[in-house]
Each structure stands twice: as structure tokens, then as C-alpha cells.
């Protein structure tokens, strides 16, 4: 079946602009994660959604970052007033419920802030 998909694959924006990154999880997966992969910080957790529960936003680096998940499926990560240090690859992963269930990763969105 289809895996996790993310769009766009690449995004170039100017400093100060807002961007939206989209994630389509595997159908039936109730858990959804966002991670960021950057040269300076490596791979770091951003946010976690489980079904319709309140998300764990503890990894978001600033209040310019927000995310939502509509209908327990598609998720959008929004970065407002982008800065150059936001340049990174943003990875989305989904899994079925359960602590030992594998997270399946999408191909990522490469964000470049000029």
C-alpha cells in the first residue's frame, strides 16, 4: 500500500515568509510525528499527534512553529516568519497505536530559507 507522503518535496522561501508543509500518513495509522533534520542539530523531535487527543508540542523550537491534524489524518506544519536557521529537512512519520509499533517515515520536505 501507499506509504507516508509529504509535500512539497522542496521549498525555497524568503526570510520572513510563512510556509506550510503537508504530511499524509499511512491510512489507518493513528499516531503521527514530525521531526526535523538539520546540519547543526541532527534529527530532532518536533510534535506528536495521537488520534483526536491534544498533541505533544514539547519539541517545537519556537512559537513561530505550529501544527494541526485535521480529521485524525492529514497534518500540516506551519512556520511563520521563517528564519535562515529554519532551513532543514522536515520529516513526517506515522505508526499504528502502541509503544512498540514501527514508525514509517516519509521522504521529507527540504526547506531552504534565503
Amino acid at each position: 500500500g501507499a506509504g507516508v507522503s509529504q509535500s512539497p518535496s522542496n521549498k525555497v522561501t524568503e526570510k520572513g515568509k510563512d510556509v506550510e508543509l503537508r504530511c499524509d500518513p499511512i491510512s489507518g495509522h493513528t499516531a503521527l510525528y514530525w521531526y526535523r533534520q538539520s546540519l547543526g542539530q541532527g534529527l530532532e523531535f518536533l510534535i506528536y499527534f495521537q488520534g483526536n487527543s491534544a498533541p505533544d508540542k514539547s519539541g517545537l523550537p519556537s512559537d513561530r512553529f505550529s501544527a494541526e491534524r485535521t480529521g485524525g489524518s492529514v497534518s500540516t506544519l506551519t512556520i511563520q516568519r521563517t528564519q535562515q536557521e529554519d532551513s532543514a529537512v522536515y520529516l513526517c512519520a506515522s505508526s499504528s497505536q502502541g509503544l512498540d509499533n514501527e514508525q514509517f517515515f516519509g521522504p521529507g520536505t527540504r526547506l531552504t530559507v534565503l
Partner: protein
Amino acid sequence: AQSVTQLDSQVPVFEEAPVELRCNYSSSVSVYLFWYVQYPNQGLQLLLKYLSGSTLVKGINGFEAEFNKSQTSFHLRKPSVHISDTAEYFCAVSDRSGGYNKLIFGAGTRLAVHP
């Protein structure tokens, strides 16, 4: 807090030679451990995982890893590598303190297999 250290940022190796990618973790609770592989311009793919039970874990593509609690290590090994194994490899530990599986990753090891 849990953390992961990958001791080598790059590992060059010749084709058909054995390889070991080192990973050490820090955790005050029982651990779930993972190795992921990332091919160029792709997402992460799970190679193998340790949750409990046998300390020797076998994964895909001929890789295996051994959980060593006394040395807090989870090194990845393959007896004979191929050119196609060239990729970046990430070790991760699961932080389950929030009631879900939040992955804490190491910095990654770039494996370069030469003919």
C-alpha cells in the same frame, strides 16, 4: 534524559569487507533501541529494533545488532558490505516517558562502501 552517541561520523570500507557502526546510549529506564538507514534523498527506513528478549537482533539487508546492557551499547554489524549499503545510519532510543514512542536519534554515521 535519554541520549544516543554514535562514535563515528564517517566509516569508509571496501566492498565485501565487514563493518561495525558503533552506538552507545544513556538511559535510566529499560530501553527500546533502533537502527534506521537513510539513502540519499529518501526518508528513514527501519533496519532493526530491540524491544526485549534476545540481545542479538537480526534485521533487513543482512544487518544485525547486539544489545549490551553492561556497556550500554547497540552496535550494528554486517559481515560483508555491498556498494548499495552506502547510506547514512542512525541509532535511536525510544523515550516513552510521555506514553508514546518518541525517538531520540544519534548524529548519524555515514557509511561509504568503495569498490
